[in-house]
């Protein structure tokens, strides 16, 4: 009998006391937008396109983000400059479809596409949620500072000749028979 009272009434009193004590606790909600919340760096919010440490566009238009996207909200077209560097001619994200899953960031072989802690993306007009490359491209490296795809890949671009990528020997002289 005593046990029954302890388990029911007692526990209810404890609950009431705890609820009551919350009236004096520090609040978790903040006065947004006057007070900005602290977002973790790994928060998956607004998608950006970053630049490599040399200040060039990181995106090489490989299409892996687009194919990884479960809602197919990324569309782009490859273009190539005279020196052989690939870049997107256009790069479009339809944020009205995006579910911020971060698969694109995971798929990106050049760390170009990154999700940022910004979540303030509401629009009155849905059409405004279609972002083009000009809207997405930032002037920095984003979360990953050092990676520079073209310094590692063996494709020649402006300012980096054959044999100048990481771990590469100078180009072979085919006419030489020396070992």
């Amino acid at each position: 009998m005593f046990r029954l009272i302890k388990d029911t009434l007692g526990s209810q009193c404890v609950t009431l006391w705890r609820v009551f004590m919350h009236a004096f606790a520090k609040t978790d909600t903040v006065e947004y937008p006057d007070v900005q919340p602290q977002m973790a760096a790994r928060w998956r919010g607004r998608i950006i396109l970053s630049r490599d440490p040399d200040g060039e566009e990181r995106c090489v238009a490989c299409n892996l983000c687009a194919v990884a996207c479960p809602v197919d909200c990324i569309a782009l077209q490859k273009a190539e400059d005279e020196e052989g560097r690939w870049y997107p001619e256009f790069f479009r994200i339809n944020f009205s479809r995006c579910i911020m899953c971060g698969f694109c960031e995971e798929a990106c072989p050049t760390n170009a596409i990154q999700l940022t802690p910004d979540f303030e993306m509401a629009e009155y007009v849905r059409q405004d949620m279609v972002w083009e490359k000009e809207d997405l491209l930032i002037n920095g490296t984003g979360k990953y500072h050092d990676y520079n795809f073209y310094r590692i890949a063996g494709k020649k671009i402006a300012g980096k000749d054959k044999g100048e990528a990481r771990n590469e020997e100078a180009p072979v002289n085919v006419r030489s028979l020396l070992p």
Partner: protein
Amino acid sequence: MAKISVDGIEYDVNPENNLLQECLSQGLDLPYFCWHPCMGSVGACRQCAVKQYRNEEDKKGTIVMACMTPASDGSIISINDQQATDFRSHVIESLMISHPHDCPVCEEGGECHLQDMTQMSGHNYRRYDFKKVTHRNQNLGPFIGHEMNRCIACYRCVRFYNDYAGGEDLAALGSHHHVYFGRHEEGVLENEFSGNLAEVCPTGVFTDKTFSAHYTRKWDLQTAPSICAGCGVGCNTAPGERYGTLRRVVNRYHHDINGYFICDRGRFGYDANSSKQRVGKALYRHGQEAEFKPLSSLEAKRQFAAMTGGDVIGIGSPRATLESNIALRDRVGVENFYAGFSDAQFDCLQEVLKSLREPGLYCPDVRQIERSDCVLVVNEDITNTSARLALAIRQAGRNAATDLANEARIPLWQDAAVRELAQNTRSPLIIVSPQGSRLDDVASATHLLQLDNQIHLLQAVAHAIDPDALKPTASNEVDEALSSSIAAQLCQAKNPCLVSGISAESPALVKACVNVAKALRAYRKHNSAEQNPVALCFAMPEANSLGMALLLETGGKPLRAALQRLASGSADAAIVMENDLSLRTSQTALAEAMAGGVPLIVMDQLHNRFNEQAQLLLPSSSVFEQHGTWINYEGRAQSSYQVFRPSEDILASYERLSALDPMQECGVSSELIMQEFARANDAFSALTQLRPPRVGISASLKSPRQSHRFSGRTAMHAQDHVHESQQEQDRASALAFSMEGVMLQKDSSLMASPWSPAWNSNQSISKFQQEINGELQQGSKGELLCVRQSTETAYDAISAKRDEKLTCFIISQLFGSDEISANAPAIQARSLGPYACIGQELALACGIRQHGLVDITTQTGRVQLPVIIRRQIAPNCIGIYPANEVDKYALLLGEITLQAVPDEDSHIASSRAMFDHLLIKDALAREA
């Protein structure tokens, strides 16, 4: 049949093949690089290692290369054996030591055999810390991109390019780990099949440059099965579209026709589809106005309906679909329907059709030409008119090697051994032609004769084979010796094959070829153990030349009748469908016809000289933008499917012609036109079998044009409208414009882009073949429409006379002679302007210098052309390449006079620059 055991499971295999081929035939996954179904094994890459056991008791086994080991009866092997698996993963690791880590910026990425095989072999992380070998690339011309760092040295490129396609300007250079695959110096890859390097190379060393210019990953392309409209061979292709423009064309496997390879015209000619010359909007000119005024699609339909109310002439086209020609004839009536090719071609095609119905002969498909052990090519420059046939003829030369190898009991897949054994032994290939050709390097004899003398020679050959054939009058000893030697070679062969064409537009030549075939038939009936029919085929200049000829048999008149009616003005309007009449008849005849004042309605894809004269110019769809039926040189009907919808202004000709009500959205579907026509005409009844039946489950379950990985669906049109529009519906075929539906592996004729788990590259086709390099599992291979009759006909009488007077022949070029593909930028970069080509004696007689200008005058025409002097050209012959500019019909009539035009350094320099692109090895040096 032999029995082998793979990982404890028994399989029935063909003991003549190697283990790799048989494992793949059984659907097993075994990685490989250097082996190719058409090129056999060399054991270069060491990737297909398996464990082989001597017998049941042998538990240790030895590692062997599957591609170098025969699948002999009782073999016991293991693919999954740990040692073999480790071996393969170590081999791929070492192949990847210098791989440049650039898959994201590689055109091969996503359809890369190297990616697939690396995954399959289980190599994930690079352990090798030392430096990578690097190479400089070469600029290989407008077709092929080069990125040598990606090479794994499998040698497939040179084995295809040199050994298979007969190229001479690609080689393995350098030594040891510095080996380099490229040209001796930068420059255009000459061979007509260079585009196949992009598909043959298992990685991204050789890639399609035109595709790279508007690159899209394979999984993002919307593809549909199509037929190449570049010539009359009917190669199967798989064009791909993205964002509303055509991106590339690749080979689509067809066992009997193109197999694994197509020519560069077919592969790179697609870009004409989005060229500046494209007619994008309907254009109308009122009365005598000079300027065209664009019309909206509805106005165009109204105007078309208004103009075609009365008595209308219809001129069809051999480069339009069969459906469009049928729809045109239905619209204007049989009595008003005219052929779309020249009168001489009309006559030639009548003869060709007769030969296709002749018993005891057969029209070889490409694979059958490859099996022939003696080929006689007459007059046709086959490499430049039907290039895929030339590749097959080149392979036919290897049958002598096959015989030697069989004698020496060397399996045929031992490629290096068979080549070593055969050296330069080749089956006879006899070429009779007015000029040297690209097949001369494999020809046993090239006889340079002008057309009349060729016909004369053929008559003599026919007589030498069968004395019942009429002996030509006035032959001399040289002729007799030549004809009897050709006759002897043809009689000795087990599978002799005669190849000619109608580009000379000579019915007598066609008849003479048929006579030789008939003589062989008679000879084999009496004297030979070989009773199989004789192979005879004629190359067709256009994709539907034979289709149009077959259609005309059920009603229609030759072009001259149409021109007469136009000249007399006895019609209310004339519809010219997808046809540049200035290429079909002489300019004077055409001008006379136009002077009749009949309002001209032209439907075409591209602007050209002729359709500028139209009153109403209507844009029509290309082969990629409509469903259609094409009949190739064998009389084989094949279906091509719409790859993508063009803008609403562009309609297929049959849609425009079958819609009687201008307000109607579009006309009757191609399928309906075809079904009705096939039902009404017994000769075409096989056409009902052509497309997969759309009843029961396949009616509602469509086959997708887009891959299951197709990306960007909700973003690709979002810049215009964020709300996604409905997927386009295709009510006219079993395909859907979406990724929904089932990949119809039950019907391979609907499969444009083969894919199988772990096999993303084009090598995945092996998963859909009955056996490697065999038939596709199911689906229509096309329907042969010409039925052989039961009674043999007698020899055709030809008045063959030897002729020594100066004559003119027309040269074709692979890049430039075809009207449509000539407008693709990459093809334009390889094409030449008009030129003339003469022999040394003639040049000396007329005082013409190499690369100078020559003035050619005939009764009806006159033209000045830059000239190239060759060694390999028949005496008293002048070859003219019209480049679709020069009026060739004016030059073919009457006496020809040649005159040298005084040299001017400027035009010598310009024509010299042009001739640098011409692939003629026997041109005289400038100073000679």
